[in-house]
């Protein structure tokens, strides 16, 4: 057990090292993203500002509270870019036979797949997220107590896993459909709409869908509503940050099973 953990850790560390080296081979790309990427979050926060300027509050949420919610969501987005970016392009990887090499090595295929592209450029999403989040925290006067920090970490891990699971799920479908369709932009649109605004502004049916069917509400809305005492359909008070972690591990585990089923249908490519 310990030796297996050590084995995985050493391999992951080397793969991460290789990814960073590879990123540094093409420094221009990093610099390009560094300028281009934060722009979408500036636009995101500007949209929220515009909505608030128009309506005063959004379903009882002030601009500072919305910045807290949005910042939290963008941080987990950045983390999911760093750890799970390869799942965005799983359809192509599958069709081009890239799993061959991973399957020839005596380690878990998914483990290798995740760490093969540790995408350092994701920090260009992460940094704007942190900036927006810190601003939100200062507006809502968040107390940086030990338990609050622990809860935030719990939310971020859970939320990152939920995001990864969604992409891994849509990516795994390629094993059955044999097509490149990655649902990439559909996923992005849904993530954006469900994490930028409080889920409570949507009709009840939609709230249910994004709670029980595709649990995106746990990425930002449920934990944030607990931090801000906003109330939600669960009437939870302070438990949601932990629930997010559990939901994250749970959906990730389920999707992993689906991936493994799909891998049996893997057909490699050409010769």
């Amino acid at each position: 057990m310990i030796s297996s953990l050590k084995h995985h850790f050493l391999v992951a560390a080397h793969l991460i090292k290789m990814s960073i080296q590879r990123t540094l081979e093409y420094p221009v790309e990093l610099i390009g993203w560094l300028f281009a990427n934060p722009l979408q979050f500036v636009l995101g926060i500007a949209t929220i500002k515009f909505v608030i300027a128009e309506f005063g509050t959004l379903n009882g949420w002030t601009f500072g509270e919305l910045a807290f919610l949005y910042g939290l969501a963008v941080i987990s987005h950045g983390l999911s870019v760093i750890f799970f970016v390869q799942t965005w392009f799983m359809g192509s990887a599958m069709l081009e036979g890239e799993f061959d090499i991973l399957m020839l090595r005596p380690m878990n295929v998914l483990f290798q797949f995740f760490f093969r592209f540790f995408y350092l450029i994701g920090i260009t999403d992460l940094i704007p997220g942190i900036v927006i989040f810190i601003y939100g925290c200062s507006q809502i006067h968040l107390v940086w107590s030990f338990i609050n920090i622990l809860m935030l970490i719990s939310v971020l891990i859970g939320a990152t896993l939920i995001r990864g699971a969604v992409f891994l799920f849509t990516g795994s479908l390629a094993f059955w459909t044999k097509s490149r369709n990655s649902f990439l932009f559909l996923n992005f649109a849904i993530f954006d709409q469900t994490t930028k605004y409080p889920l409570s502004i949507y009709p009840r049916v939609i709230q249910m869908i994004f709670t029980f069917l595709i649990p995106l509400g746990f990425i930002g809305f449920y934990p944030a509503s607990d931090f801000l005492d906003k109330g939600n359909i669960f009437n939870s008070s302070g438990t949601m940050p932990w629930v997010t972690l559990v939901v994250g591990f749970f959906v990730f585990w389920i999707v992993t099973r689906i991936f493994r089923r799909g891998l049996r249908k893997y057909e490699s490519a050409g010769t």
Partner: protein
Amino acid sequence: MALIEVNHLVKNFKVAEKEKGLTGALKSVVSRKTKIVKAVNDISFTIREGEVVAYIGPNGAGKSTTVKMLSGILTPTSGNILIDGLSPQKNRKQVVKNLGVVFGQRSQLNWDLRLGETFELLKRIYQIDNAKYRQNLETMNEILEIDTIINTPVRQLSLGQRMRGDLAAAMLHSPPILFLDEPTIGLDVEAKYSIRKFIKEVNSSKKTTIILTTHDLGDIQELCSRLIIINKGVIIEDGSLNDLIDRIAPYRQLIVDFYKEHSDITHPLAEVVEKEGARIVFRFEKANITASRLIEDISKKMRIKDVSLNEAKIEDIIRAVYKK
């Protein structure tokens, strides 16, 4: 005991049938036509430890599909495979520890980084200890000259260098079984030479069992004691190269140069296939008469200036087999 056992292996692929043009594309959105292609259709064979087997066949015969099933990448539609008693599908991690696999068309080396980085990664994945790692690299260095390329980014290696790197990467954990899928494809004579030399070396020094798919007949002649020929998913020949030659083309050609042109030299056991000036080409079956006897008989009739002997061309034999 058989190290590799393949029993009634079948692999079907569903292939989409598309009609041409935009209308075809639209039609396929509404209703998808698929047909089943039997890439591998009920094949069985066993391979003993230390054998070097050429697994050959025309393009699309099912060679790569078989190798991919043997190495756990593809799941067979039916039938089973045992490698040292284990199924590569059910016990993938266990089985691949004992395999080295090289795909000539697909490198396992990290494109952007120096060759050594991939080796370092493999060292960690296979948990090779330092002493063993260094020793393996050193042995491989003798033939594959890894030292000269280890610090070069893989994208800057020539095809021959890359293939040397891929072979070394596959052998780093000293696997007892090696699958080589077209390892000499597109290589120049020099690169082919060093790769063949390396294959011979690992087979003789470590008794490594090797399955090799190739279109290069030189590979077969130089390396393989046994030949399995597959066509349209079915094994059509399995045996040694010499057996195959004896069966398919048991004849040789004797080319005789005389001092002057002569037209009526014949022999009851040899057939005259070509006449040109003072040269006559005889074809005879090994089983009927020996070359020395034939030369002796002919020289009694006419003074011979020079002779040479041609074996049947392996290319012709393989082509004859494919056509069957």
